[in-house]
């Protein structure tokens, strides 16, 4: 019964069977056995078994068992597996040979992919690199694979946005390194950079209609094509990539083909459903209305459509905005009734194969998502082809081609009210059912009013009549050719281009109450990032113990961003949405061209595999700076020492390594044309008009910025590698940071480019891995990571001690960077209090006195952590990830409105008998005042002047992910020629275990720009549940 063949591709398997059948009658010597791992006594699948001196071989099956027919009697079997010491066993006439393989101490370290796609032994690294396998992204999925990094890696702060499918990601590694730069890492596929920009720029924190998240470059990457993701956190790791790597590098290695007979097929199918994660905790004691009265006419029903300032909810009759009489009862399900269950289907099929000369992998993927917002869809089709070939002994070629088509429809806007579909479900009066507003338009196609301010759109009108459409065609192509001049000397040339064209159209339709004749916005963008790189590699062993490896290279980067914006007003023929049908139309071109040339080199030395030294140097030339300041050289040096191989450590320690490194990375402004003043024509139908091109002050004296990092760390393994500890301390300082910062308009401009002083990020990162149980049937692995980043603005420019980075709607709060404080400080006002803590009131207005602006907290959490538990029992595995962030504040624009509309619980004070406030006047006299219950709305509305009232602790702990998998035993599937299959129940963002925000998700961020700390009425965040099937043929 155990005559099962190894899980090996069909053709090969059949061939082996044939060989065995042929040889059996002649030799009749068949060996069976089992290979176990020395460390946990588990069966080891995939171990190669070779009859020594022949080509006769096999591999173990999924339980570690094998069967081999020998060709000679005095045979010796060689058992080998990567990372383990190969064993030779003489058969000596036995029919059963069981073997235990031992891990190879010298090969203890994994190999990881580092800069320029170079694989290095982990123990040789002088810096912290974390690698995540592609399989971690393909079961429980995020549409944007970058979001899936949340909680997985110490020091990597991934923030998913609440913008629906196709949205952007935001990843910050070891804190924000630049005050106003994007601060996101460089994304690299197979060694070459790709573009991660958001066409037209990120959504803003306070934008109006059309303020949608258009999606970044990572949104177009299919997780099924990813073999692994390496995160290079430190400057040393990134030094070879140059300026854009100052914020770290995320290296994506794509899957490659495998040499085999026939074609291997992998199929991965996922279905997930998502729903709203957080329902606001509104008050439901007093209903819709105003002046403590409920609406009794349709005019009142509309005027008070978003006011919950009515009378006690008592089940009596009232008239809604729809003019109908309804019972005056709480309607608690408006969010659930408005939003739907979102659905995402993802199917990927991959084919791979090849021979010893050429291997290939080709995948096709289709993602089809429906947002929780009715009518919003996102589709992504990806084709990915990877070819590796050898032409003769000296030349190897690798090529990658990826085509992606993303189409989005009716993506949500956020920020200000007009055209924001999320407004009505949050703000509608608490005794109105949002569905009464359906379909949002009348017989003439005109928006139906539901409240006193037409700027606050009827959400049904928005989802039914507003039109947002975008599409992105993207092609990534790479060709690399390596020529081996000598056995130890090779040169490699690689050319890559990431090109996309993007079309965006946003129609504010005819019939919109606020803009009756509509508005038209169109954006056409094409962007290309092209890199050509030439490197030479030389390896040599000197005097037996010394290894030397040198690399010399040059890179030329060209970046082109061409955009055409069309904006027009008033459709001449109603409901006909074309740029030809507008009363006026403005066309604005943007054409940016950037070039960076670089030469670089690195030198790696190792001594006996115990001590390692790495040095790099790079010189960059930037087109965006003036010729007198456009170049910078920056070096790095790092070393590591494997203590456990150098000296005898106590038995309990299996492995110990210390590492240290120092690195500099230089950088330039990412924007071209920032050095000279220029003048642009302004479209005019009369006399020609001209103006200064940029509202940002250009600066010819800009010089490159420098980011300097040093880090030290230890890597320890204890108790037969059941316990691992990886600790890092880093100190990263950015000097001469190039910022584009807001300045007072009285300067004649709204912002300025300048070099500013110094920004520091210091922190610790820890990774603890524990394997409490390593049984044959049952296994349990725990991994905990933690990072604390202390960011501090050391110095800004002379005479400037604060930079404004963002403002909320209504300027109710600001995000500043203040000298001596952390990056991204939330600034706002409080109610002035006297020494005894009494609130100071102004008797003229009756309102509390507003303080001057001052700092109220950090916008970015300093402390982040993640805890992963993986359990395996026979064919079942279960894993879950807890993810926590701590220490930041969030200012809620949604709550400012909810307070004004009488939906927050705090507005219950005074509803019955009026609100009596007591405090003191400025001169210290006692002050008391009673606001009649009829006037509470205006009184509470004034609270928006006090930022503190809507500022919350943004800390949270979430159950981020859970996966329950069952590996379907292959024998049940053999009829379908299936090699392996697994079925998983998956879930993301399942539960928030701890939060301090009652009415919204603390991760409710709308923009992937650097300005984090505001919540602004975006799409509610969701939790998802689904099913994943993986089948390999």
């Amino acid at each position: 019964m155990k005559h099962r063949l190894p899980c090996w591709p069909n053709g090969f398997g059949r061939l082996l069977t044939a060989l065995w059948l042929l040889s059996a009658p002649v030799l009749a010597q068949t060996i069976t056995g089992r290979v176990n791992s020395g460390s946990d006594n588990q069966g080891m699948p995939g171990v190669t078994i070779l009859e020594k001196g022949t080509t006769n071989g096999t591999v173990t099956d999924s339980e570690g068992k094998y069967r081999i027919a020998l060709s000679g009697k005095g045979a010796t079997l060689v058992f080998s597996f990567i990372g383990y010491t190969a064993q030779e066993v003489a058969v000596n006439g036995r029919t059963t040979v069981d073997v235990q393989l031992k891990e190879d101490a010298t090969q203890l370290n994994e190999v990881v992919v580092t800069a320029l796609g170079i694989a290095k032994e982990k123990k040789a690294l002088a810096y912290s690199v974390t690698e995540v396998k592609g399989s971690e992204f393909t079961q429980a999925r995020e549409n944007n694979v970058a979001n899936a990094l949340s909680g997985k890696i110490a020091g990597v702060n991934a923030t998913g946005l609440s913008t629906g499918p196709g949205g952007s990601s935001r990843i910050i590694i070891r804190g924000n390194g630049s005050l106003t730069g994007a601060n996101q890492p460089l994304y690299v596929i197979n060694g070459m950079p790709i573009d991660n920009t958001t066409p037209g720029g990120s959504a803003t924190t306070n934008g109006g209609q059309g303020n949608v998240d258009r999606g970044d470059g990572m949104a177009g990457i299919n997780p099924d094509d990813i073999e692994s993701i390496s995160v290079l956190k430190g400057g040393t790791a990134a030094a070879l990539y140059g300026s854009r790597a100052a914020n770290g590098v995320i290296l994506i290695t794509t899957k490659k083909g495998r040499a085999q007979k026939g074609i291997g097929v992998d199929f991965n199918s996922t279905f997930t459903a998502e729903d709203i994660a957080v329902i606001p905790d509104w008050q439901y004691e007093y209903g819709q209305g105003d002046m403590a009265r409920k609406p009794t006419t349709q005019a009142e029903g509309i005027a008070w459509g978003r006011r919950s300032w009515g009378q006690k909810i008592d089940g009596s009759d009232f008239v809604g905005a729809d003019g109908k009489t309804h019972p005056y009862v709480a309607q608690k399900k408006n969010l659930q009734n408005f939003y739907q269950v979102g659905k995402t289907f993802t199917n990927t099929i991959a084919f791979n194969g090849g021979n010893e000369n050429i291997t290939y992998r080709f995948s096709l993927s289709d993602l089809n998502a429906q947002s929780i917002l009715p009518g919003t869809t996102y589709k992504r089709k990806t084709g990915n082809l990877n070819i590796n070939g050898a032409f003769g002994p000296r030349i190897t070629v690798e090529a990658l081609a990826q085509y992606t088509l993303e189409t989005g429809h009716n993506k949500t806007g956020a920020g200000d009210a007009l055209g924001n579909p999320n407004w009505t479900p949050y703000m509608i009066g608490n005794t109105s059912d949002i569905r009464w507003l359906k379909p949002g338009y009348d017989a003439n196609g005109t928006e139906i009013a539901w409240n006193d301010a037409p700027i606050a759109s009827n959400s049904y009108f928005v989802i039914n009549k507003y039109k947002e459409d975008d599409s992105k065609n993207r092609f990534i192509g790479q060709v690399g050719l390596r020529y081996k001049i000598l056995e130890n000397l090779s040169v490699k040339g690689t050319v890559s281009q990431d090109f996309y064209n993007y079309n965006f159209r946003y129609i504010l339709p005819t019939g919109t109450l606020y803009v009756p004749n509509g508005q038209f916005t169109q954006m056409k963008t094409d962007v290309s990032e092209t890199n050509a790189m030439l490197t030479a590699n030389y390896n040599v062993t000197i005097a037996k113990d010394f290894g030397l490896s040198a690399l010399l290279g040059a890179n030329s980067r060209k970046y082109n961003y061409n955009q055409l914006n069309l904006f027009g007003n008033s459709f001449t023929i109603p409901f006909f949405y074309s740029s030809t049908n507008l009363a006026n139309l403005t066309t604005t071109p943007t054409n940016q061209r950037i070039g960076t040339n670089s030469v670089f080199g690195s030198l790696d030395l190792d001594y006996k595999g115990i001590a390692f030294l790495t040095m790099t140097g790079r010189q960059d030339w930037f087109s965006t700076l003036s010729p007198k300041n456009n170049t910078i050289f920056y070096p790095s040096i790092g070393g590591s020492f494997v203590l456990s191989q150098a000296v005898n450590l106590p038995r309990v320690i299996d492995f110990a390594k210390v590492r240290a490194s120092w690195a500099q990375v230089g950088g330039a402004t990412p924007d071209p044309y920032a050095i000279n003043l220029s003048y642009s024509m302004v479209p005019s139908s009369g006399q020609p008009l001209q103006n200064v091109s940029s509202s940002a002050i250009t600066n010819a004296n800009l010089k490159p910025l420098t980011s300097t990092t040093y880090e030290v760390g230890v890597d320890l393994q204890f108790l037969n590698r059941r316990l691992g500890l990886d600790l890092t301390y880093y100190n990263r300082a950015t000097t001469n940071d190039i910022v584009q910062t807001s300045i007072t308009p009285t300067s004649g401009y709204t912002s300025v480019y300048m070099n500013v002083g110094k920004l520091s990020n210091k922190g610790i990162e820890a990774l603890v891995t524990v394997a409490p149980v390593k049984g044959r049937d049952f296994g349990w692995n725990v991994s905990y990571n933690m990072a604390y980043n202390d960011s501090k603005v050391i110095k800004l420019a002379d005479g400037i001690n604060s930079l404004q980075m963002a403002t909320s709607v209504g300027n109710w709060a600001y995000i500043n960077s203040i000298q001596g404080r952390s990056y991204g400080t939330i600034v706002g006002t409080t109610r002035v209090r006297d020494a005894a803590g009494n609130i100071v009131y102004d008797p003229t207005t009756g309102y509390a006195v507003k303080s001057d602006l001052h700092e109220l907290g950090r916008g970015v959490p300093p402390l982040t952590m993640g805890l992963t538990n993986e359990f395996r029992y026979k064919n079942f595995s279960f894993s879950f990830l807890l993810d926590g962030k701590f220490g930041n504040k969030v200012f809620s624009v949604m709550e400012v409105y909810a307070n004004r509309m009488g939906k927050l619980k705090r507005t219950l004070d005074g509803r019955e008998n009026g609100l009596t406030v007591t405090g003191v006047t400025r001169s210290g006299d006692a002050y008391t005042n009673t606001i009649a219950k009829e006037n509470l709305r205006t009184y509470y509305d004034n609270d928006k002047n006090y930022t503190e009232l809507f500022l919350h602790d943004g800390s949270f702990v979430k159950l981020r992910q859970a996966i329950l998998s069952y590996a379907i035993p292959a024998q049940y599937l053999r009829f379908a020629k299936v090699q392996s299959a697994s079925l998983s129940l998956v879930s993301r963002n399942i539960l928030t275990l701890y939060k301090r925000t009652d009415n919204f998700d603390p991760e409710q961020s709308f923009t992937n720009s650097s300005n984090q700390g505001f919540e602004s009425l975006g799409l509610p965040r969701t939790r998802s549940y689904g099913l994943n099937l993986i089948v390999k043929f």
Partner: protein
Amino acid sequence: MKNTLYKFGIGLLTCLVLQSCDKGFEDLNVNPDASSTINADFVFTKAQYDAVGNMITGLQGTMQYTTSYNDVASWGSKYIFNQGTAPYTVFSNAYVNEINEIEEVVRSLEKDPAQSNKLAIAKIWRVYCYSKVTDLYGDIPYKQAAQGYVNSVFKPVYDPQQAVYADMLAQLESALGSFDASKGTFGAADLVYGGDLTKWKKFGYSLMLRMGMRMTKPDVASAETWVKKAIAGGVIQDDADIAKITYLASGQIVNQNPLSYWMLNSDYLKADGNSNPEGGKYHETFINYLKATADPRLPVLSVVYVNGKPSTDVSIQKGMKANIPNTKPSDFVTYSEPNQNTILKLNAPMLILTNAETEFYLAEAALRGWYTTETAAALYEKGTRAGLRQWSLYGADGAISQTAMDTYVKAMALKAGSFEQQMEQIYTQFWVSVFPNSQEVFLNWRRTGYPALVPNNYVGNITGGKIFRRMLYPATEENLNAENYYEAVGRQGADNFLTPIWLDK
């Protein structure tokens, strides 16, 4: 193969040694959509459009011309302000637009003596631009303003208004003295006068007259000096000299009348009297006054929609009250609103400084004994007549018959009385004659107290039921220019709507 490596090495070496790694980078960093040199004419035109279009529309409500049932839209007539940026707009728009533009123009013209006339005109315009800002806010960045690029001033100091006024008047005087008829000037790029130096001179002195009068409250002696200088220089006293910009009915928005554009798009685009996004209508006070005085402008300015059709029938004109608590009244359609055929035309002119305005100032000067050539009554009548005539600039529907004018002028003649009584009559007529220039009316109201508007005591107002005395600095100033902002506020008083600025002391 050694050869290949050698070549590669040489390539890298060349790059490093000869520094040729940035070849072509300078050209690459030139914006293909912009020009590196200024065209002063084009920027000057832009500065004219921008300055004239920069206004605080809420003052239409404060001067009780218009109101809305909607609290946010009617902030100016209800003295509430809890959202948006409306009281900041003149300040925040001026510096990045017209002021920066005109400073750029001045800078480029200063280099060339042949351009001295253009330079003088640009400097007069610069005074106009700054005066619009300081008049509303008080102390403002002036000496260090708009020097972000040239002198890297990112936090300009706020200058006391008195100093700002002194410098503006000196600038005006010196520019007016530098005209040279033998040199060239602006042509069509000057939207106001087509470069006519004589007219610019009249505008300059009329601006001096306006600014001189502005100072009667804090410094009556200076006011007298400058008013007399202005009169001696020669001010606008002819309809042909009215400073105005004419616009186009279609095309780019920048070429359309900014006030009409705003009114249409916020309220009246649907032209049915009822569909009205921001809920605007004429104010009860304004319409009642026009009706009470049988003003022939009423049918020119105002319509009521009857069965979806506009009617200029005077008997049904009715202004809306400014105390409606944020709920659209059921009789909304029955209230008067602006006439689509005059005031709302996108090609209507914007009147910057009119014959009517100067005549009223001259009437006041006569009352004060600063001007004796004509009597106050005669000047007042000339102002009233000019105010009626100017509606013909809005097209055929604006023309008022000679008979109607004569009747009105006779009925409204300046009555004998005390200085105060005559001032009240002059500046009440000013209010109806200068409409819709609410900023000018507001500034004269602040100075003289006329027209004697009854303040609105709306629930939740933030002035204790008093009419505004000034506008607010943009909220971001406290964050972006804190030290200078706090210094100005410390000197001038709290940054609220009631603090009296120097002109108001």
